[in-house]
């Protein structure tokens, strides 16, 4: 009976192929040097095995050899470094116009919120052939969002947003796992990425959509009386929010900060760290009152108030 031995993972994203090519290159180099060393050891072991009539012959150190086996590995690792870093920088840079999806990791599940209103747990539906950028937050400990078939992985760190982008190339369902040990049921923090035809994805989104997060965010905005200071127009207490998303804003300290997801999150949790020029540090913190999902919703609401000119 033939047992099927899995040797190579599926390739289902635009970067998977190029990562595999580099891995194959590394495997070839590693195999070459492993076999070189093994063969030399075997050859010497047999040729120079101790036996009557054979004595060891002194061999003086040869500088040329030392230089050779310093320089050749140095050159090869320089190639690996350049290739690996170049590909990494390319793979890290999310292409313009990527659709955003918000993901929260918590012990021990992934919750996903699509801007159109569909929410899911343990599954992530995405369209094929379109760049998708995930904005990742953790509610508790460090998790890691890993899709082996896409060759992408990113730690999800509490206290900050990290991002991960990919463009799926093949329709299908792929495993999504937590790769950073996060406690008792770490190995159960596992799910699926479902890659769909763009049209199917649109249908799926429309089907069973909840209120879009912007709507939920608007409710939170009212419940927590944010509007009291952040009237949608400029007031004296808090800076305006309409048309601000993605703009560059000058702070009291003189620095310029992008009015993006990370800044809005920071301003909700740690409001007086970076105060917009012309305003006083009077906003209270909402730490311990809002969870990561709710913060996403408020960001989605502010986002829905219109984007500024700069790229989000």
């Amino acid at each position, binding site marked *: 009976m033939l047992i099927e031995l899995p040797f190579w993972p599926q390739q289902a994203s635009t970067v998977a192929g190029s990562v595999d090519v580099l891995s194959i290159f590394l495997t070839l180099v590693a195999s070459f040097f492993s076999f070189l060393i093994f063969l030399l050891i075997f050859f010497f072991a047999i040729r120079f095995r*101790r036996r009557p009539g054979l004595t060891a012959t002194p061999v003086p*150190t040869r500088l040329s050899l030392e230089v050779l086996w310093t320089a050749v590995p140095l050159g090869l690792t320089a190639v690996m470094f350049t290739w690996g870093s170049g590909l990494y920088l390319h793979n890290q840079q999310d292409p313009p116009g990527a659709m955003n999806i918000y993901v929260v990791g918590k012990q021990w599940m992934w919750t996903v919120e699509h801007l159109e209103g569909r929410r899911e747990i343990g599954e992530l539906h995405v369209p094929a052939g379109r760049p998708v950028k995930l904005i990742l937050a953790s509610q508790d400990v460090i998790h890691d969002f890993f899709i082996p078939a896409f060759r992408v992985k990113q730690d999800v760190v509490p206290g900050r947003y990290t991002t991960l982008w990919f463009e799926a190339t093949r329709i299908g369902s792929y495993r999504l796992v937590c790769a950073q040990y996060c406690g008792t049921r770490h190995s159960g923090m596992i799910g699926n990425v479902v890659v769909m035809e763009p049209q199917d994805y649109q249908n799926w989104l429309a089907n069973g959509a909840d209120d879009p997060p912007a709507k939920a965010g608007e409710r939170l905005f009212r419940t927590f009386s944010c509007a009291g200071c952040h009237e949608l127009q400029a007031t004296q207490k808090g800076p305006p929010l309409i048309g601000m998303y993605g703009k560059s804003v000058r702070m009291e300290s003189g620095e310029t900060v992008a009015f993006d997801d990370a800044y809005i999150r920071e301003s909700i949790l740690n409001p007086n760290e970076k105060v917009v020029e012309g305003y006083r540090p009077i906003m209270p913190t909402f730490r311990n009152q809002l969870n990561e999902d709710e913060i996403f919703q408020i960001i989605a609401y502010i986002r829905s108030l219109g984007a500024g000119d700069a790229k989000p």
Partner: protein
Amino acid sequence: MTHANVPENYLNASWGWRSWLLTRDHKRIALLYLISITLFFIVGGFFALLIRLELLTPAGDLVQAETYNKLFTMHGLIMIFFFLIPSIPSVLGNFLIPLMIGARDLAFPKLNLLSWYIYIIGGVFTLAAVVTGGVDTGWTFYTPYSSTYANSNVILTALGIFITGFSSILTGLNFIVTIHKMRAPGLTWLRLPLFIWAHYATSLIMVLGTPVLAISITLILLERSFHSGIFDPKLGGDPLLFQHLFWFYSHPAVYIMILPGMGVVSEIVTCYSRKKIFGYTFVALSSLAIAALGFLVWGHHMFVSGASPFAGMVFSMLSFLVAIPSGIKVFNWTATLYKGSISFDAPMLYALGFIGLFTIGGLTGLFLATLAVDVHVHDTYFVIAHFHYIMVGGAVMAYFGGIHFWWPKITGRLYPEVWARIAALIVFIGFNLTFFPQFLLGYLGMPRRYHAYPEEFQVWNVMSTAGASILGLGYLIPIIYLLWSLRYGRVATENPWNAMGLEWQTPSPPPESNFAATPIVTEEAYSYDIHT
């Protein structure tokens, strides 16, 4: 065998518990370490056995998830802090450094005994944590899981590691001073055995790195006890700060574990090929290069942590650089075999095994240094396979090779050669069968620290577990015949392997004072060509 005709040596010079527990003789302290680390090795190995049994099937059916998490945590902690780090330095280093440099003892004999007691106290704390419920943070103690969320014995365990660290610092300090100040007349730096160079480099890391581990652990203790808010973002801290601090020690710690093994291999390869080492200066200085560069590569554990891509590139480049001196060693050992007169006694089998497995371990490290590839294999079984090739295929093979090589010197008895060769082969085969499939598992995407796993990974896991049982047998056989040899082994002469080095110029076992008269050194190390 009567005791009457055994000359006085360090073993029979005095009798009774006090003569051992209060000894200041580096050779006796080495034996205290040998016994204690062997016990820890058995405990850590038992945990590994349970891990492999659980992973035989995809479902988490042997133990509960919580128990599994404690098993891999305690396997890591015990093997790293209580076996690998002290293994070669505290046993072989302790025993051999004074003998190899022609000294009577280490520079600070009482400090040497103190460091064993500190090690034992740390061990008692950690074992107490194990028996009172265990700890489940992973040996890496990542925050904020360890500082806020874990419900296991973090404080007791961390205290144990904290305490044990001081044992390491004192041992390192003792070695550095001894090597500087107590070399026999004529034993210049460039005549030192490479075992000494390797331990010198190791000691530098122990002294400079371990305090940072102590600081990181102290901060965890503060955070857990008083919510100091250094690491947990809910308290205003930064979880990545911990990773920087932790790896600043724990990456160099890898070199604490492997450098002494490299020293052992240099001694064995030269002896069994009857050759001077090829490229002495390059092998010696590469140890120092590894120790120095090793402090600058910690960030390669954090390529996907959310640290900046620029930092990632710098750490990637430095990580490639640290591979170069390791490569130099491998090439020089191989070249040493050329035109030798090679015999395949057990120590040599372990040393050759070391070279092969360390080569694979080192070359697979290049995958992890390559940013774009690390993104895929980080935190998967690829990493597990890689570091077990270094730690077990490298460090443990060298430790076993060294124990066999110097066994006659330490005990005055020869081990049974045939059994030893069989065991070495079993270890080599079992090791590869255990860990090679894990490279494939990792690239396929099986994450580490998984209690249960998807079914498609089972074939390779079954293979790995089968290999582990062979490996376990391979470790069991030497423990049995080495104990057997203490009573029944052939009595060893002063220099049974016809080896160079001052330790072979004194009786086996050596007298308490090591040498009847201080030796005078007139030639380079490994002058096998002059004395064939």
